[in-house]
């Protein structure tokens, strides 16, 4: 990262790359491993140049196998390393699911604290890039349901830069979601501005009409919707969850107590998901403040469809606005 404090415009992908670089400079125990992360720099180039600059000991390609990637990362963590694993696409994390759920999430507990698992598992998630099957999944809820894991989702270039460094510095295993269709979003990064702590949600836009909470790739969708809604005189309060486990819902409760209305947006299938949890918790905590039921705008409870259908599958600006109208009409 350029030492200068002058704001520099970066993409979300670049933010991750620079953040990884900073983390590797800060701690020589940090390793980057995964399929094609070396010379190629990853299929999304997130690890671009890292092997060249940090060497093949610290940045290395693995054989093709996600259980192998996570399982050896666990062993490296036992040895005192801080591995950052790249899962190439969301749909390919499942061969490694057993090692994540049975070992990575439980070793600290099992050992009564004698072992630490400072492992970061990076997963590009979500659809919208016209990909073939298994390249557009949103598996966040599987991990958020798993005690022992911490789960975060970055949505902006600046968060990407800071959150990846905070995740790597965390002594707990962190499942780190990256909104792949937003990799090329740009924003100015001002190193002078201190980052928000990792496990905090953030109010991105204040409003009084209704609260809309989301995370990851749909954050921008919701912000766009809020801009359009403003024209219709609707002032939406927009909250980016950022941390999916543990959840930081206090700002959501505060907001709903003011607006009385909540819409939860996620492109993952809605059944038994993070949006279910947020809706349940808000319905309980803000029981007397809610003027209308919490509405959810999510991906449908179907397998992810062929790419030509994803425009219909993914929650978009119109579906968010439609929900706003419905929650207000209530």
């Amino acid at each position, binding site marked *: 990262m350029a030492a200068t404090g002058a704001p520099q415009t970066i993409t979300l992908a670049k933010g991750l790359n620079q953040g990884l670089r900073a983390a590797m400079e800060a701690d020589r125990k940090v390793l980057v491993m995964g399929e094609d992360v070396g*010379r190629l720099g990853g299929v999304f180039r997130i690890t671009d140049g890292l*092997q060249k600059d940090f060497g*093949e*000991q610290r940045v290395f*390609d693995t054989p093709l196998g996600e259980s192998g990637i996570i399982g050896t990362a666990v062993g490296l963590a036992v040895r005192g390393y801080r591995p950052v694993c790249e899962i190439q696409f969301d749909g*390919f994390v499942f061969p490694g699911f057993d090692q994540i759920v049975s070992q990575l999430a439980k070793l600290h507990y099992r050992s009564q604290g004698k072992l630490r698992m400072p492992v970061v598992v990076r997963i590009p998630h979500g659809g919208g890039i016209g*990909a*073939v099957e298994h390249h557009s999944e949103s598996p966040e809820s599987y991990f958020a349901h798993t005690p022992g894991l911490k789960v975060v989702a970055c949505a902006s270039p600046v968060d990407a830069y800071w959150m990846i460094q905070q995740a790597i510095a965390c002594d707990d295993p962190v499942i780190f979601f990256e909104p792949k269709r937003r990799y090329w979003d740009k924003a100015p990064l001002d190193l002078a501005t201190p980052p928000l702590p990792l496990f905090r949600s953030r109010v991105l836009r204040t409003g009084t009409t209704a609260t809309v909470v989301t995370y990851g790739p749909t954050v921008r969708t919701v912000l766009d919707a809020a801009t359009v809604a403003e024209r219709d005189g609707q002032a939406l309060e927009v909250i980016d969850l950022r941390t999916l486990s543990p959840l930081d819902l206090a700002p959501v409760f505060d907001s709903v107590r003011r607006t009385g209305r909540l819409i939860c947006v996620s492109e993952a299938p809605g059944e038994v998901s993070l949006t279910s949890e947020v809706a349940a918790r808000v319905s309980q905590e803000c029981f007397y403040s809610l003027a209308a039921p919490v509405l959810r705008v999510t991906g*449908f409870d179907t397998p992810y469809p062929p790419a*030509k259908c994803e425009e219909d599958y993914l929650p978009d600006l119109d579906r968010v606005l439609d929900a706003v109208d419905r929650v207000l009409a209530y």
Partner: protein
Amino acid sequence: MPSRNPRSSRSRPAARPPVTGSLGQPGSVVGTAMEIDGPHTPEQVIAGLRATSEGEDLVQLLTPEGQRVSHPQFDLEISPAELQSLYRDMVLVRRADREAKALQRQGELGLWAPLLGQEAAQVGAGRAMAPQDMAFPSYREHGVAWCRGVDATEIFGIFRGIDQGSWDPIATGFQLYTIVIPNQCLHATGYAMGQRLDGKIGDADNAEATICFFGDGATSQGDVHEGFVWAAVYDAPVVFFCQNNQWAISASVDRQTRVPLYQRARGYGFPGIRVDGNDVLATLAVTRWALRECRTGNGPVLIEACTYRMDAHTTSDDPTRYQVAGALEEWKLKDPLERVRVHLVREGLAESEFFDGLAAEADELAVRLRDYCISMPAPGPERIFSNVYAEPTPAVDAVRDDYLAYHASFTDAGGTS
């Protein structure tokens, strides 16, 4: 690091210095990789082509120079007509592949996974199958699909994002593409267990076998191992056909193994054969043998077809970032089509009319594929909700009705909804 290639459990590599080992470098150089850059005797050099030498165990019946050679175990009787039709398949398959790449470049396909260079491995294996056999492909087996009568337009549909495989996986004897590597190895094994349960093993004409396709990178995944274990324990009539095209995206095969992959089979107690995957005759002969072994109850069998990925991993890939020049040039000299053409010509097995006719046929195919592709209808939103379950649920039906009503509420129904 020193290369090594242990031949027995006793072999002992030389000690390496106590410096910090590099995890970025493969622990050793794999057989093929070594030998690609190995020496070539002058008499092997004919018509600019050189002999392959992927190890002494490599089965080859047609040299890159177009010379027929014989093999003690895997010889092949083949008529000029058969030879021509194998060549024809390879030419047409390659043409379809190139057309697909062009269509992707023009935005008509979202992605394409080229088979360039693997035509002989796929046509040889595909043509070795009997009608009643079943194939479980990965995502690059366009040549096998062709041999099974699956039209290229159905393959294009996947890469155009219109569906996830539209052909009938049972009627064609060619299952749908599998993208999660290598889940299909267990499906193939289970299907083959079913063939045995159905009593389809034996010398009868309707005896059946299964063939499973996967790559060199796939061999590192647990599912390949479990497929080998299950198939061996249940004597499943399945041929594990590994196309070693030397690359798993940017990872060369020595990132997956120290020794040639066909040697894995021994440790499970079934045969492993390494065949020249750029030699359609050798691939045909070895695969025929392997399928017969399976049909008669001696499965499973592993075949490693040595070939080379002559193009990028997919159209989104940029091999210049990781590929060392040279290897590609080497392999161009082992082109799977060229050696057959040279053979047909030199031995006077085909006239120029044949080649001219084939060229014209390829052109027609390309035009047909292009025309069909750009006019392929996109699925409507109802597709999202179709076939989620064989026994529909009220929940999915209700969401579908809601969404379709909402969708229709937009004046421009095809709009940004």
